[in-house]
């Protein structure tokens, strides 16, 4: 701490939201009756009082500059009474009771390069993570992958071409801070960690690293007279958990850290229960700056879903209906041995029945 302090910290927790609410929101707080989707990118909420509130949603790159934020504030000041909010998927929303402002908002937003969309049956913005820009353990740059994909899915964001909304997430390591999603694009390492035996004992608490491994593949050892660790390559499944505990367990590799694609993740309770995504493509190259191979697979999946999904049916629910065999056929992806679960609850995923499609 270099500078002198004159201020005594107030441990206030979250920002007090009361002055951040639009007046129409305040007035009708908890008294909304229903909503309509008048057009892509726009919501219309009708309150019990009869009040109406329009919302216009636009995509952002998430890694924003103060310049962009100020531009956004300008738009909020001009068309949305000085209020705005963000969504959990890094979209920004402007609210106005005034229907005429809707068109103006859309124009203003597109003028500063922010596409309007993300509402209703479309691809919303991608939930993503830090990547090379900031994290200490990433194998790729999430923001770059996202930019490449959203360029391709630009029209999908702005229009209602899909059976239901598709949420995509991108994560730069297997920890997957981006979470479960209809389509999750996640790094998967394919080699065990490489240990720098010279420095490890200075930098890391060895027992903690040993404890972190889910398959007990790490053992204490001594190398060149110094305490170090040994990875049993037969057991190790390249998860990188140890790397999170100790930067010397280098798991990232420019060639051998790959991408896997997981589909059918779902967080909502609508219709089916929340579900985990399942692996349908693996070993896709980590290919900056545009990751064409990942893009291609995402496209195939979306195309098949677009063609066959039914209204309100989420991607995973479509697969549940048509069956995984058909999914692989329709996307021209290949079910590989590695896609058979081998972890703790693997048995519960085996087909313990004679139910089979031909």
């Amino acid at each position, binding site marked *: 701490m270099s500078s002198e302090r004159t201020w005594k910290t107030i441990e206030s927790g979250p920002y007090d939201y009361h002055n951040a609410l639009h007046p129409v929101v305040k007035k009708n707080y908890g008294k909304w009756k229903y909503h309509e989707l008048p057009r892509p990118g726009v919501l219309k909420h009708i309150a019990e009082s009869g009040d109406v509130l329009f919302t216009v949603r636009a995509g952002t790159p998430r890694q*924003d500059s103060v310049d962009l934020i100020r531009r956004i504030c300008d738009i*909020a000041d001009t068309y949305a009474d000085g209020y705005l909010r963000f969504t959990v998927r890094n979209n920004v929303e402007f609210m106005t009771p005034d229907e005429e402002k809707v068109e103006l908002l859309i124009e203003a937003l597109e003028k500063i390069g922010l596409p309007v969309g993300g509402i209703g049956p479309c691809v919303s913005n991608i939930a993503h993570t830090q990547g090379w820009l900031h994290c200490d353990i990433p194998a790729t740059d999430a923001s770059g992958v996202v930019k490449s994909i959203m*360029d391709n899915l630009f029209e999908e964001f702005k229009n209602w071409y899909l059976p239901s909304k598709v949420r995509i997430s991108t994560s730069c390591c297997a920890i997957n801070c981006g979470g479960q999603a209809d389509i999750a694009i996640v790094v998967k390492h394919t080699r065990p960690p490489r240990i720098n035996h010279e420095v490890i004992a200075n930098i890391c608490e060895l027992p903690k690293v040993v404890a972190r491994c889910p398959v007990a593949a790490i053992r204490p050892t001594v190398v060149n007279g110094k305490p170090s660790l040994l990875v049993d390559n037969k057991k190790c499944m390249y998860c990188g958990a140890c790397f999170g505990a100790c930067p010397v367990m280098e798991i990232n590799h420019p060639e051998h850290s790959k991408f896997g694609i997981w589909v059918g993740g779902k967080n909502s309770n609508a219709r089916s229960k929340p579900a985990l995504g399942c692996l349908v493509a693996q070993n896709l190259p980590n290919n900056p700056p545009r990751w064409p191979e990942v893009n291609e697979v995402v496209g195939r999946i979306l195309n098949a879903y677009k063609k066959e999904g039914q209204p309100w049916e989420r991607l995973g629910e479509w697969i549940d209906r048509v069956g995984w065999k058909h999914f692989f056929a329709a996307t021209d992806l290949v079910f590989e041995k590695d896609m058979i679960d081998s972890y703790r609850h693997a048995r519960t995923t085996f087909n313990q029945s004679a139910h089979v499609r031909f």
Partner: protein
Amino acid sequence: MVQIKKNIGVETKSTSCGGTFLHPTPMLDELEKGPWPSFIVGIKELAERTRKPMLRGVLDQLEYSYQTKTGYWEGGLVTAYGYGSGVISRRSKIADKFPEAHEFHTLRVQPAPGLHYNTTMLRDLCDTWEKHGSGLIALHGQTGDIMLQGIEEAKVQECFDEINQAGWDLGGAGPAMRTSVSCVGPARCEHACYDTLQLHYKVMQHFAGDVHRPQYSYKFKFKFSGCPNDCTNAIFRSDLAVIGMWRDAIAMDTEAMQGWIQKNGVDFLVNTVINRCPTRVISLAEGMMVIDNANCVRCMHCINVITEALSPGRERGLAILLGGKNTLKVGAMGGTMIVPFFKMETDEDIAAFIRLSETMIEWWNDNSFDHERIGETIERVGLKQFLDGVGLDASIDMVSRPRSNPYYKSES
């Protein structure tokens, strides 16, 4: 058709050649192309305008990462006075190559519940941040923080003091209570079964100390969704998912219902609503839709489709699901239904909710291993042991079916 092969390559305003301040970044420049708003365009614009060396260094290092497919940040410890968390420290491992990027710490700042803003507070934040830091802000991190990305250790405290005066506080990191998010809730959503913003606000105020001074076995996250649509992804992404719930029958505005059916047709009703009810409890009776509410599992689907005529019942509150987390070590787990209905109307209800949460968190801290999330602890010691520990009764709502193996201690 989704384009799957090639990039569209629409050019937006590229700053890659105009600037004089920045070094060449040929790979990053590829990300200036295409219609989606480009973070590279944004950072470059900011760098060119502010001429902050840190930003140039970060771009240089990022370009190098793209070329070598390798990350170069390492963690460390930077904190604000009196705090143990809230700042994510990043130093370059190759500061010799890119000395301008040798420090690039992030301040995690707790947002307002519901991610609501007025332009004044945002502009002020931008100004302070431009003054002390890089001017780069992530809105928002996956946990919900405003991430002020890029500051030197020396400036952390003065920056924090200034934003703290403006009403902001730091978020969580490490083995601590983490920053929370709440859905837009009653502010603009007709489905909200409790006041997500208020509960988020009160709960996180209560736990502020645990956010700032890590003292748990591992991280603990709350997320507040106003209904089972779970717009904050609480079930898979928080240790304690708070999901709006109602206990009585779905409320139906029969007139609106008739109107809806008239407009959309019976076929649509049957195919899109009745046929998609997970427990198939909706029937058609003389052209009207009838719900057997005893077998409705509160999935929200029919309400979502027919929002103008259906809504959650009037006996509203919340459900608590415990133990959600993502992949690390055990594979992702969804939160388990622990309390199917908790009334949430008064201040006493909030206090009771906080008390129950604390009991659960205490049980976890007493019974967990290092770096073990509460869901892992429950899985390891058993849900029954957890219920006994916190003094809750078992209910069939907690499981999808009773056990199918005899491997338990039945004491008669």
